[in-house]
């Protein structure tokens, strides 16, 4: 971790001196299990930058903020963060010209749960791309990066799929009943970039799709449509589940859609060529018919 921190500071100092106005990275939190986003503009502040076991926060989302839009920015991105960055480019939400990216070969990070038990972060247990290879500067040692087998990716989703529908409903009813609608999952998602969200939660000024009542059908609407709007975009960076104060397994919803899209439309990795549109913006004449797992074509 120290080598990554040292290299981060070196890169930040050099680039701030000549052409960049802002560096977005991580810095120490008050407690050792914390790592908070840092916004560095002066070279003398560069030593605040630090990468530790808890630098999970995906910084790509900050590039959407209006006040950073026309600045020359240097940003550090782990493998998972970089996937989200690529999606932002594919959906032309940010203009990459004034953004300098430094990749981090991520050794797999940790998280501390409610009772203080420290374990490997959930997203790292299924991470498939810890190193953003396409970038020319990569910090950290490649061999230290974690390796997971491809089946790890959708283990939890498959486990849930094997349950009976009624039992699955009880599972989600139980999980979603803890939701307090704080919108942290939506606000932290780097790919949730709408200025006004249709799920704004019933501000009584305008007709919204849902309201803020503690009502299972409203919370179900929020979580299913929030995940569905990320269909074909979500890169499983794990932010939504990470920030949820009541530990709702949100990535299990997003990953179900990712899993289906891979099977149904075999568009697994995010590609860069101009022609390929997002899975739900594209079609083929011989797409499978709606039915479970695209199986039973309609009579």
């Amino acid at each position, binding site marked *: 971790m120290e080598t990554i921190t040292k290299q981060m500071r070196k890169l930040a100092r050099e680039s701030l001196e000549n052409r960049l106005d802002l560096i977005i990275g991580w810095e120490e939190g008050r407690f050792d299990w914390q790592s908070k986003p840092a916004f560095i503009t002066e070279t003398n502040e560069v030593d605040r930058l630090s990468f530790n076991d808890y630098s999970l926060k995906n910084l790509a989302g900050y590039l959407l903020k209006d006040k950073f839009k026309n600045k020359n920015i240097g940003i550090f991105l782990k493998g998972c963060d970089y996937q989200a960055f690529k999606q932002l480019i594919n959906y032309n939400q940010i203009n990459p010209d004034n953004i300098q990216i430094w990749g981090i070969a991520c050794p797999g990070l940790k998280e501390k749960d409610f009772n203080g038990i420290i374990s490997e972060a959930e997203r790292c247990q299924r991470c498939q791309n810890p190193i953003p290879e396409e970038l020319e500067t990569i910090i950290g040692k490649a061999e230290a990066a974690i390796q997971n087998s491809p089946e790890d990716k959708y283990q939890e989703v498959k486990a*849930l*799929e094997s349950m009976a*529908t*009624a039992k*699955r*409903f*009880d*599972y*989600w*009813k139980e999980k979603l009943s803890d939701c307090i609608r704080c919108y942290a999952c939506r606000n932290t998602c780097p790919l949730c970039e709408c200025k006004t969200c*249709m799920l704004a939660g019933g501000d009584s000024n305008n007709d919204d*799709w849902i309201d803020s*009542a503690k*009502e*299972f*059908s*409203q919370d*179900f*609407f929020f979580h*299913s*449509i929030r*995940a*569905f709007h990320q*269909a074909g975009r979500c890169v499983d960076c794990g932010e939504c589940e990470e920030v949820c104060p009541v530990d709702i397994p949100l990535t299990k*919803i997003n990953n*179900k*859609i990712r899993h*289906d*899209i891979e099977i*149904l*439309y075999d568009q697994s990795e995010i590609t860069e060529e101009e022609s390929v549109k997002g*899975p*739900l*913006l*594209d*079609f*083929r*004449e011989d*797409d*499978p*018919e*709606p*039915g*479970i*797992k*695209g199986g039973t074509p*309609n009579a």
Partner: protein
Amino acid sequence: MPVEETVNTQREKNNFEPLLVAFCCNWCSYAGADLAGTSRMNYPENIKIIRVPCSCRINPGFVLRAFQKGADGVLIAGCHPGDCHYMTGNYHTRRRFTVFKELLNYMGIEEDRFKVDWISASEGRKFADTATEFTNKLIELGPARKLRDSRWKQ
């Protein structure tokens, strides 16, 4: 016992009349429904048809809103892929609602409550059959209370 018997006995037993909301695309399925009507085919009146310009006009929010406000089943009927009046509309419908149907079932909604089907303007018979089958299936399944808003009163 043929399907008809079981359904009728269930209907008398708890006189449950399902509400089936059908989004029909104006160019094909709505015309199909019209044809079913003009050629005197009878189909249950539990089906409530909402006309939409194209099946891809439907947003998954409509489906959930229908279930919230008392629907027991939702049908999306569009033109057969390739005959869409707007050329590619139903291709998008197909992908969108294949993924959404999977998601709904994954989150606990019975698969048979939500159906996407292609009914052309000349398939009046298919429209009537689909309506009848779907209604009978819903009678078997019973009322859909899972997504209904508890504040919703008829």
